[in-house]
């Protein structure tokens, strides 16, 4: 890791330099209700400095909605008729600027399930993440409960930390170092800067209540006791069974695949699916193993907080709080997490 110091003007120049070789995206104030969302940017002044996360997670860059996997035609006589053509395309590399540490972590966590997926991995390959640490935690933030930190670096190429006058830039990967070099104008951080950043990091982490070993505790619990716990019924009674939580979740990555064909020309697409929807588990026979809402609600939380940790280790949640913020009926994953941790 190399640590640099860069002024606000210097950061603006970085972005301007990067746009020569990368598409640069940042959180931009888009919505009337003060929320930010991802959009292409040309300079620092376009980027929102509001605390908290964007409306949509960065999974839109890794799991586009929809993503074309193959194209085909079925026009007899044409040379490549009835042949699936792979559309895997590395595309122009891009920089996501201003990623929160929680969102950056989601790329690594989803990567555990997608490591053999060429489409996902191509998007990982072509996307560089420049994060910005969180000085303020929102009422819905809980990254410290699930193994993250407001100064977390997992998944990032560069972490920016805003200090009194400047920014400290931690270049965490080789790609991050080359981004800093391509940007130009950065000085190496002094020992004083490093000490300041370290004390900021400690202060920010101490300001948030931590829950150590969440994943380990959940892994050690009995799966069937969790599955049969009493609280699922009450929880699902409030739920309207929409997909807002799953679609806005950075670590909900489930999909379905379909062929879309118009006049014998088609594409095979991968699009977001949600375990909240009955069709998600509908069998061809008509039978649905998760035909009831309570089963679907339970599955969303069990997948994140039990099945995923059992299989991969960490919890499949980064504590960004979007599901809490956007749920029309205020279902709060923090309460479910507490309930599950309390299961004997």
């Amino acid at each position, binding site marked *: 890791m190399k640590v640099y110091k860069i002024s606000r003007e210097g950061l603006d120049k970085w972005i301007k330099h990067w746009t020569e070789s990368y598409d640069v995206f940042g959180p931009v*104030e888009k*919505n*009337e*209700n*003060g*929320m*930010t969302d991802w959009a292409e940017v040309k300079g620092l002044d376009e980027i*929102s400095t*509001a*605390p*908290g996360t964007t*409306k*949509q997670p960065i999974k839109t860059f890794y799991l586009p*909605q*929809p993503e074309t996997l193959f194209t085909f035609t079925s026009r007899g006589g044409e040379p490549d008729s009835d042949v699936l053509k792979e559309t895997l395309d590395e595309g122009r590399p891009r920089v996501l600027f201003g990623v929160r540490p929680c969102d950056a972590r989601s790329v690594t966590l989803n990567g555990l399930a997608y490591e053999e997926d060429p489409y996902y991995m191509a998007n990982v390959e072509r996307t560089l993440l420049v994060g910005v640490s969180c000085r*303020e935690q*929102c*009422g*819905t933030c809980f990254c410290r409960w699930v193994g993250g930190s407001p100064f977390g670096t997992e998944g990032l190429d560069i972490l920016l930390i805003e200090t009194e006058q400047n920014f400290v830039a931690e270049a965490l990967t080789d790609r991050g170092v080359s981004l800093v070099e391509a940007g130009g104008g950065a000085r190496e951080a002094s020992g004083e800067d490093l000490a300041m950043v370290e004390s900021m990091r400690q202060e920010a982490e101490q300001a948030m209540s931590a829950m150590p070993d969440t994943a380990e505790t959940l892994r050690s619990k009995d799966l069937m006791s969790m599955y049969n716990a009493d609280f699922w019924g*009450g929880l699902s*009674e*409030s739920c*309207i*069974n*929409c*997909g*807002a939580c*799953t*679609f*806005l979740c950075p670590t909900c990555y489930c999909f*379905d695949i*379909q062929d*879309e064909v118009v006049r014998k020309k088609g594409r095979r*697409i991968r*699009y*977001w699916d*949600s375990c909240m*929807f*009955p*069709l998600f588990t*509908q069998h061809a026979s008509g039978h649905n193993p998760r035909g009831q809402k309570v089963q679907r609600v339970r599955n969303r939380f069990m997948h994140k907080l039990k099945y995923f940790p059992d299989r991969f280790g960490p919890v499949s949640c980064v504590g960004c709080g979007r599901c*809490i*913020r*956007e749920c*029309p*009926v*205020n*279902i*709060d994953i*923090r*309460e479910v997490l507490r309930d599950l941790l309390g299961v004997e």
Partner: protein
Amino acid sequence: MESSSSKITDEIRAEASRLLSSGEVAAFLGFVPGSLPMTVRPFVARSSEDAARLVWNSFCVMNLANYLPEVLKSVEPPRGPGDPEPEGPLPRVGVLATGCWSRNMVVQIQENRIQRDRVVILGISSRGMVDRKKVLARLGGREALKVEEQDHSLLVSGRAFNEEIPRWEVVRDNCRSCVHPDPVIWDIMIGERAGDRQNANRFAQVEEIESLAPEERWAWFQEEISSCIRCYACRNACPLCYCPTCFVDDSRPQWVGKSIEPVDTAIFHILRAYHCAGRCTDCGACESACPMGIRMRLFTKKLEKDVLEMYGAEAGMDPETPLPLSTFSPDDPQDFIVTGQESPKSTGDEAGRSGEVSQS
């Protein structure tokens, strides 16, 4: 001074507790406080201890009629698909209802979704619910950590700020244009009835869009739904949407594409709105549920206006008046239907063809 919401809360708790402990109802459908400012959670109380948690405030934006059939089902004795109906009256459910929610319950009775004698309705005259998104917009990215409700203002506080927001300015658009705040059916009234509201023009928002040229209207529609993520929160928050399989979930055949292609999103929103024509009470739950801030109730509001103009009907105002689009009488005016008889709009050819059909 005690706010009107907290007085209503006290009365709801007392009535719900009485109904539950006397066994008059097996469950009571209301709200409990949410974990964030300006949120509540729909909740089914089953004991008087549960009833003590119920709350009423300006943020009760979900329509409880939407939950009612499921809660009614949950209190019935379990039975298998072939089992006979249990003998004797089935357990009842208590529920809160404002003007629009009670009208939705009327629609549910008319559509055989619920039975009137199985619900005990606590009627509340609505003062209009607050749009959380409007409050957030006024804060411009600053986070509200505490919101205290007074009768005519909200006291919002966060890190290093306190702000008093006049309540009516952040009330939801549907509530601002509401003319029927009082429940149309109820068993126990909580608080006073307010009477119909005078509203200069409840369709002003719709008329603004109607005044646009067709291509501008289409552009407006496309822009409005462009951020849709197809989460179906609008559909699922709606008491009118109860098809066993929604047309967007049909897979054999599949009627509409699954991703966020603009044409697929448009089909979903247009069909959803039309399916609500003559049934929608403009409760605003769809808009309140939408995480993306889409104003889809304007689509249904347009249909509400059309139905009022063409049929003189408003959904759910009277249990004895059938829904305008699910009834007919032989002497209905039907200039728009081609019949065998001479009609100024039909050509001879068409009249001949349809005449044959109607005789066959």
